[in-house]
């Protein structure tokens, strides 16, 4: 069986399952952010009174933190009251957490083999921890809060094996954008994706999360990277429970296997052009694009290694006068580490502004919205029409290194053009 089949079989009490089969599975963890308020309303409408298991629900405020309006403040308040009334054990209020997909693993909520649902499409991120994790809507979540179970159609699996080595300045973000460009925005619709191969196994946990996060943008229901020593090293200090490893069977059946070479297939950074994530081009093919705003953050690229590479690019330089750089650490923990290591100091010295940990302007509702005619280069994951503000603004998705380089250049730029090789590296303290 594939990873997806193994986890669904376990969670639904079967020895084996196969694609297309419909199963009813027990949910191990149910995550919501501010849309917990919608879930709460649907749940109260159903009328069973108590949630099925208050220890398995995690609620994290991230989309609008701190509250930007009275409306949001009221929503936050209603959720806090509900959390208290139901005895929900894991609640991350303003200033305690960060972006939901960063907070869950960081605080040891995610383990290999779990079945996780979240009222957020990028819940696929947790496949980097060997979990079957997928997004659902609010009413469906109210059903989970009621019954603790959910029906699933067992997905077929697409396996992506990546050989070779990424070139300098090329990151997991470039790799996954390249794949989305090749497969299209619906290229993995309804499917599970398994990423594997030497290039993946060398990646940090943070980089693997970029792959499973963005797999959503090709339609994936779930996405996995391998459960190996690098992952277990990350999990051990965070997870009190005993850790199981999980791997697909050698004779697992795949719908399709895609092989690529990270070095050969990716000669330069890539960009997803407005207004769809699969309009992917090599940076040099995009042409001259002046940039008004550069955004570094989100559940895709707001982690320590992302801030580190950005700090390396901007160190000792100034952001272009036409451009503003908004930096949003993905969580309080990332924030503190980046502060301790001096990355934030470097970024602010170059002219960046630091937003509080959370989603920031990623979904166009908080601090850093775009005006009509403005262009933004962003390390986030969506560039739909109006996603980050005006419907007449333009969002180019790129890696953290390219975002930082573009902020310095005032236009889309290769980090190579900014950082000359001979310069000392910031992180060599």
């Amino acid at each position: 069986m594939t990873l997806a089949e193994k986890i669904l079989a376990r969670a639904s009490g079967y020895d084996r399952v196969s694609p297309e089969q419909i199963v009813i599975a027990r949910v191990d963890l149910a995550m919501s952010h501010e849309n917990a308020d919608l879930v709460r309303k649907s749940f109260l409408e159903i009328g069973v009174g108590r949630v099925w298991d208050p220890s398995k629900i995690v609620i994290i405020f991230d989309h609008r933190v701190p509250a930007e309006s009275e409306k949001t403040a009221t929503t936050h308040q209603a959720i806090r009251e509900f959390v208290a009334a139901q005895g929900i054990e894991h609640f991350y209020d303003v200033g305690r957490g960060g972006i939901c997909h960063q907070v869950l693993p960081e605080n040891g909520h995610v383990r290999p083999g779990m079945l996780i649902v979240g009222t957020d499409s990028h819940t696929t991120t947790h496949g980097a921890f060997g979990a079957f994790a997928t997004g659902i809507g609010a009413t469906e979540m109210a059903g989970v809060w009621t019954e603790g179970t959910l029906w699933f159609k067992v997905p077929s699996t697409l396996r992506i094996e990546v050989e070779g080595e990424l070139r300098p300045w090329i990151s997991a973000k470039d790799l996954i954008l390249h794949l989305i460009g090749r497969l299209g925005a619906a290229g993995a619709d309804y499917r599970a994706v398994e990423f594997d191969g030497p290039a993946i196994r060398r990646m940090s946990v943070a980089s693997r999360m970029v792959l499973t996060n963005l797999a959503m943008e090709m339609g994936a229901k779930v996405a996995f990277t391998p459960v190996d020593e690098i992952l277990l090293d990350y999990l051990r200090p965070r997870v009190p429970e005993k850790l199981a490893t999980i791997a697909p069977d050698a004779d697992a059946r795949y719908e399709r296997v895609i092989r690529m070479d990270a070095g050969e297939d990716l000669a330069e950074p890539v960009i997803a052009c407005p207004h769809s994530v699969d309009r992917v081009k090599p940076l040099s093919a995009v042409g001259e694009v002046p940039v008004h705003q550069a955004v570094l953050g989100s559940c895709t690229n707001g982690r320590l290694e992302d801030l580190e590479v950005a700090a390396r690019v901007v160190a000792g330089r100034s952001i272009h006068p036409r451009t503003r750089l908004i930096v949003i650490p993905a969580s309080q923990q990332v924030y503190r580490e980046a502060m301790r290591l001096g990355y934030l100091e470097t970024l602010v010295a170059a002219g960046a502004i630091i937003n509080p940990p959370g989603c920031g302007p990623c979904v166009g509702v908080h601090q850093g919205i775009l005006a009509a005619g403005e262009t933004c280069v962003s390390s986030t994951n969506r560039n739909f029409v109006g996603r980050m503000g005006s419907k007449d603004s333009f969002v180019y998705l790129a890696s953290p290194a390219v975002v930082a380089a573009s902020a310095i250049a005032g236009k889309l730029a290769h980090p190579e053009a900014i950082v000359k090789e001979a310069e000392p590296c910031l992180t060599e303290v």
Partner: protein
Amino acid sequence: MPDGSLKLRGRVRAVLGDNIDTDIIYPGRYLNITDREKTAEHLFELVYPEIRAGLQPGDVIVAGRNFGCGSSREQAAAALKFAGAGAVIAASFARIFFRNAINLGLAAVVSPEAAVVGHASACQPAARPAMLAAGDELEIDLVAGEIHDLTQDRIFPSAPLDPRAAELLAAGGLIPYLKRKYIDQRRNPCLDTV
């Protein structure tokens, strides 16, 4: 579908292209609206505001592949339903949108035969335009998997709804379904086994 019927009648209100994402259907800036009825006011607001203006109860939206891709926001399905749409017919749906629609009692009908295939946008024509045209009167049988275009007098196949989804739609959505299961029959969900 308050009556829980699995046969619908309606008029095609609009024919759209591929990858109509959730930000197009319901802009992120209104995500803090949590009254489902009120979401209808912002349906397609940024890109196709005219669709909502002339939408009659029961009207059908036709689109290409991957309708509803993007965010898990349930407001996208809610806005369609509470603006009065009776169904969406598409070549394919993004999975979260499909589930949200069924859970809210909005029919999501898969029919590559009837829908647009290929991109359709200002700069890119579709590989094949939709067979259904705006204004066509339709009769849709969700269980049999048939779209009868009364105006053109043609029948297009659609994917028959799977039994689980049909059960939810017939109940009017997940909330009435669970209400009936646990409240009207006074059962305790915690005693239920899988």
